[in-house]
């Protein structure tokens, strides 16, 4: 395999489960099951799904905040789960950074903006004690907090949500990472400024060649920002396709349902939905397709066997028996 | 808001009946006694059980001894026995028993009961707390009114122990299977009070013996014992007149008790008991030297100790270490020869210089190694009078250049150290009995001395004197009062010369009485006994003499 063909990050059948419940009543929550996709330099991959679909877990898996229970995670072709099984190395941390959903929770209220940005700079040797402040000022300027001097000594509570999220982005940029995991970076922000933050991420991708994993529940935002979109349901990957293609021709019934639920100009609440609304099973799913209970197009196999992921077209993969049957 | 008012009204309604419970007077002739400080009563009248676990007055008031010693007069009073005679070589002793004595169930009291009691103690070692069977060989009853004690060796002090042994009825006790843990809930005895009329955990009553042998005694109907757990509560009870007779320490007694009712609130704290000493450990450096010990003694301001620690209720001890109760044994003339219990810091300093403990520039005395002499003075946590005394003593000793610090330990720890000889200075008591024999054994005999680290029941300071040993052996072999007195004076002289212990003050005997309802309590004017109920057996005198006061109304008519 030559270097060019090796994706920057590749997930192969990554699974994880958590123990929930009490000491005497343990249950296994399968947060993700056999998730596979790749992420390349300069690419934005969107991951969409409802709450509980496991989309945030993917970000936490890659950031090594939660342990995996199976599969492989390849960074430049090297399976990090093998080379650094217990805890992520500092080198890995430098390359993979994360932006969290809640800018109020992801900045420590007792520390200043300077602390938040200087700390990773120093930790990863990107600055010395002497020039940490100027490097931090530069980063703040990069993320659009101008003039940076006005912000650097502030505490998080004196900043607005959008400003905080920019600080969080600056912090993620400090180690000069290759990958940024953005976990719903705008869902807590005011509508009028969301696009600014997304645009900033887009610019950074172009300027710095970053790979961004964009996790969102907003299919429309994913469509506008991402190159490819992965649809998650109940911890499983349902479909993966180039963004435009997914929006125009969603192959999976769940993707279709998601599409139908998005408000659109001229649309009406009276338009029919293609599937039964309901909640995805979280714990100990039954065999078969997790979406089978809500799906209106089930075949016999849906309740017995888990549909395999099949290739529908270039970059378009789906896990659905309807398509399995069709391709066979 | 109305609810709050309602709650307030409710509280008021509750409080009203709470106001002052009607004070109920005990029935006439029932004497209320406060002697044991306990939270609740346990019904136990086993007089042979060690450790005073039986209710007061089981040993004495319920079960009686052969004879009763009275330190106020230094004499023995015949009780169940009318007298005793020593046999040849003082190896046998016979007591003749009083006639007409009956157990409270009506059975006759005989020599058989005495023999049974002593044999029981032989069979059950836990009962032999006096160690009778260390000197006895056998006990027999030649006739129903005579008991014969055969000794294994000549041991005159044994008579005191035998005379003070309380006697239990054979016909009851011979069928008891586990005598040690038997609580004897309904005692059958010879004493003045034998009938348990009531027993609650908070109060109990003991009625008089219907068959008591002494004519006209007891004069009171019953004794009542409320459970009072603390000194403070006991004092309140006395002040309120709820208690007629007590043996408590009461601070400022003139003001808070006697002063409240000068006519009827009486107290008498005579010094007929033992004494409290400063124990110098003879194995610790400079304390080996008698001059140093005497210097220490000279440095102590005993008047201050008595004033601060003992509220002036007692008096300083003298060089004999013997209290007023031992008047007949004391050699008054010898006391002035070398009065090392007198407060004289200058003399103390001279003695220390002489003993080679020079004063350093920092004001501290140096030992032979050139280091300052530091001594720890141990006392017991919570024994407040001793702690106070220790504080005064430490200050006094610091005054002559000795670095003495007070350290208080929990009783268990303190006693453990004391018995093993692992201390420097400590306050402590000494043996006390009808004669000072036991005191001298503990102070100076080689028989009571154990090596450091071993548990010594007495002689904690580790001292023995060959001359004293000889004198004590002689004392054990003579029943002749004149000879006994001669030996006692010689022993006192040895004590004064060697200063093995430093007498501090006399241990006072606490006794209070409320004479509103009863008369006949002992006092300084009528010292037929000490007033305190705390002295086992001695209080029998009081129990048999006090009488209800005739109703004033009846007198007027």
């Amino acid at each position: 395999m030559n270097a060019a063909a090796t994706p920057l990050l590749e997930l192969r059948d990554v699974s994880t489960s958590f123990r929930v419940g009490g000491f005497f009543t343990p249950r296994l929550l399968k947060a993700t099951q056999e998730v596979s996709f790749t992420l390349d330099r300069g690419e934005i991959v969107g991951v969409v799904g409802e709450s509980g679909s496991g989309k945030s877990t993917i970000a936490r898996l890659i950031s090594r905040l939660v342990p995996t229970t199976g599969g492989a995670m390849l960074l430049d072709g090297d399976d990090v789960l093998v080379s650094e099984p217990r805890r992520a190395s500092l080198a890995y941390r430098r390359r993979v950074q994360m932006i969290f959903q809640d800018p109020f929770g992801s900045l420590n209220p007792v520390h200043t903006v300077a602390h938040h940005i200087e700390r990773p700079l120093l930790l990863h040797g990107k600055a010395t004690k002497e020039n940490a402040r100027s490097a931090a000022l530069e980063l703040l300027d990069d993320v659009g907090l101008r003039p940076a001097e006005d912000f650097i000594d502030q505490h998080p509570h004196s900043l607005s949500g959008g400003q905080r999220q920019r600080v969080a982005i600056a912090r993620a940029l400090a180690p000069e990472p290759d990958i940024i995991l953005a976990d719903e970076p705008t869902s807590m922000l005011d509508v009028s400024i969301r696009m600014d933050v997304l645009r900033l991420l887009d610019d950074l991708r172009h300027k710095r060649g970053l790979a961004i994993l964009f996790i969102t529940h907003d299919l429309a935002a994913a469509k506008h920002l991402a190159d490819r979109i992965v649809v998650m349901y109940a911890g499983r990957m349902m479909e993966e396709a180039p963004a435009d293609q997914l929006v125009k021709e969603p192959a999976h019934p769940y993707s279709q349902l998601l599409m139908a639920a998005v408000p659109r100009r001229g649309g009406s609440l009276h338009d029919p939905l293609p599937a039964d609304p309901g909640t995805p099973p979280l714990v100990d799913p039954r065999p078969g397709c997790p979406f089978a209970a809500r799906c209106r197009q089930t075949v016999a196999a849906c309740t017995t066997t888990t549909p395999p992921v099949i290739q529908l077209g270039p970059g378009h993969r789906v896990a659905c028996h309807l398509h399995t049957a069709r391709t066979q | 808001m109305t609810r709050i008012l309602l709650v307030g009204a409710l509280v008021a309604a509750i409080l009203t009946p709470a106001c002052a419970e009607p004070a109920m007077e005990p029935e006439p002739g029932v004497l209320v006694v406060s002697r044991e400080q306990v939270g609740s009563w346990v019904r136990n009248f086993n007089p042979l059980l060690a450790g005073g676990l039986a209710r007061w007055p089981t040993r004495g008031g319920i079960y009686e001894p052969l004879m009763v010693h009275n330190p106020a007069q230094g004499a023995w009073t015949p009780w169940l026995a009318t007298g005793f005679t020593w046999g040849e070589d003082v190896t046998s002793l016979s007591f003749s028993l009083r006639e007409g004595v009956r157990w409270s169930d009506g059975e006759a009291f005989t020599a058989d009961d005495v023999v049974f009691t002593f044999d029981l103690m032989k069979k059950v070692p836990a009962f032999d707390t006096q160690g009778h069977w260390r000197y006895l060989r056998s006990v027999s009853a030649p006739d129903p009114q005579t008991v014969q004690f055969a000794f294994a060796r000549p041991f005159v002090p044994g008579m005191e122990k035998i005379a003070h042994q309380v006697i239990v009825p054979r016909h009851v006790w011979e069928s008891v299977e586990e005598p040690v843990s038997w609580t004897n809930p309904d005692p059958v005895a010879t004493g003045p009070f034998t009938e348990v009329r009531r027993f609650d955990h908070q109060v109990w009553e003991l009625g008089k013996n219907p068959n008591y042998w002494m004519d006209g005694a007891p004069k009171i109907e019953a004794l009542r014992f409320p459970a009072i757990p603390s000194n403070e509560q006991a004092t309140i009870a006395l002040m309120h007149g709820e208690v007629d007779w007590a043996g408590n320490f009461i601070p400022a007694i003139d003001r808070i008790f006697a002063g409240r009712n000068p006519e009827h609130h009486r107290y008498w704290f005579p010094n007929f008991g033992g004494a409290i000493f400063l124990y110098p450990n003879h194995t610790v450096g400079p304390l080996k030297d008698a001059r140093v010990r005497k210097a220490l003694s000279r440095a102590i301001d005993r008047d201050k100790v008595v004033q601060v620690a003992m509220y002036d209720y007692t008096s300083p001890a003298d060089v004999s270490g013997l209290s007023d109760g031992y008047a007949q044994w004391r050699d008054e003339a010898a006391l002035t020869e070398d009065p090392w219990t007198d407060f004289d810091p200058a003399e103390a300093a001279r003695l220390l210089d002489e003993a080679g403990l020079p004063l350093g520039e920092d004001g501290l005395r140096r030992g032979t190694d050139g280091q300052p002499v530091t001594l720890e003075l141990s006392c017991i946590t919570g024994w407040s009078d001793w702690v106070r005394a220790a504080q005064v003593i430490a200050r006094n000793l610091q005054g002559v250049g000795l670095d003495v610090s007070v350290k208080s330990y929990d009783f268990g720890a303190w006693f453990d150290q004391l018995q093993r000889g692992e201390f420097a200075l400590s306050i402590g008591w000494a043996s006390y009995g009808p004669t000072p024999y036991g005191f001298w054994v503990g102070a100076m005999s080689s028989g009571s001395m154990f090596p450091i680290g071993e548990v010594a029941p007495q002689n904690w300071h580790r001292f023995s004197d060959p001359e004293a040993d000889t004198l004590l052996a002689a004392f054990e072999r003579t029943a002749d009062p004149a000879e006994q007195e001669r030996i006692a004076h010689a022993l006192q002289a040895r004590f004064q010369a060697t200063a093995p212990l430093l007498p501090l003050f006399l241990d006072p005997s606490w006794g209070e009485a409320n004479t509103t309802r009863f008369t006949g309590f002992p006092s300084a004017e009528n010292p037929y006994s000490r007033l305190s109920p705390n002295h086992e057996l001695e209080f029998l005198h009081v129990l048999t003499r006090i009488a209800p006061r005739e109703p004033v109304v009846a007198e007027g008519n």
Partner: protein
Amino acid sequence: MGGTARYLLGRLGFYLLAAWVALSLNFLIPRMMPGDPATVMFARFQGQLSPEAMDALRETFGLSDASWWSQYWTYLRHALVGDFGTSVAYFPEPVTGVLLRGLFWTVVLAGSAVVVAFAAGTLLGTLAAWRRGGWLDSVLPPVLALLGAFPYFWLAMLALFVLGFGMGLFPLRHAYSDQLTPGLSPEFLASVFRHTLLPALTLVAVSLGGWMLAMRNTMIGVLGSDFIEYAHARGLAPRRVMLAYAARNAILPNVTGFGMALGFVLGGALLTEIIFSYPVQGYLLIQSVRAQDYPLMQGLFLTISLAVLAANWFVDCATVALDPRTRR
């Protein structure tokens, strides 16, 4: 529901474990103390007892030279059947008898004091929070805080001397009048009430502030909840909102505190005994320590520990009953 039972059983398991630890500590502590009961007994006589008596005493108390391990097993076996041996200080009464006596009056005094303090404090806290800034809310907290800051025994002594001794309003000692025979007669019960009132009131006085403030502060927090606003919006009567919505939820943390307090008072009323001569367990404890009465000490310590554990378990049960969210 099965989950609830299992949860409660799990808590029970924990408490059993804690009981075992308490049991073992209980075994160890007295054995690590210097001296033994015989020496203490001996000392009571201050030299009037012959030295020979000591061995006899040791024999009486059955002081064992067996190894700690074998003593420990014997101890555990006996403890399981409630046999703590014979008390030394109350020889030859079995420890169980001594304990039961103390326990009864402890429950009467401490139990009623805690219940009254809890009930009154909670009610006052509820009213204060409901009428914020009212006289109840502005006057009572500082007064009760000051009252609670006094050492308990100090207040108790002052109360005894001023109200009991000086003014003759209350009996000075004991749980009932000495003139009465224990029974269920009205006079006896009235006497018990009179004797219990002052000790209980002093206990209530020092703890009332804590309950009130805890309830008030929790309640103020609860009053800020959406469901209070929602209840008002539905036109519910204020009293209904105060009791069934606000107080009902605010009381939950206090219930946990109630378990702790119950246990604390069982052991902590020892100063009461000494000051009011009320025959509760506390005095027994001091006495057993002074007399080196291991069996009694162990029995007491264990009773108190078990009482605390039982109280906590009941609180767990109560919490489950009161808070449906804890049910699984």
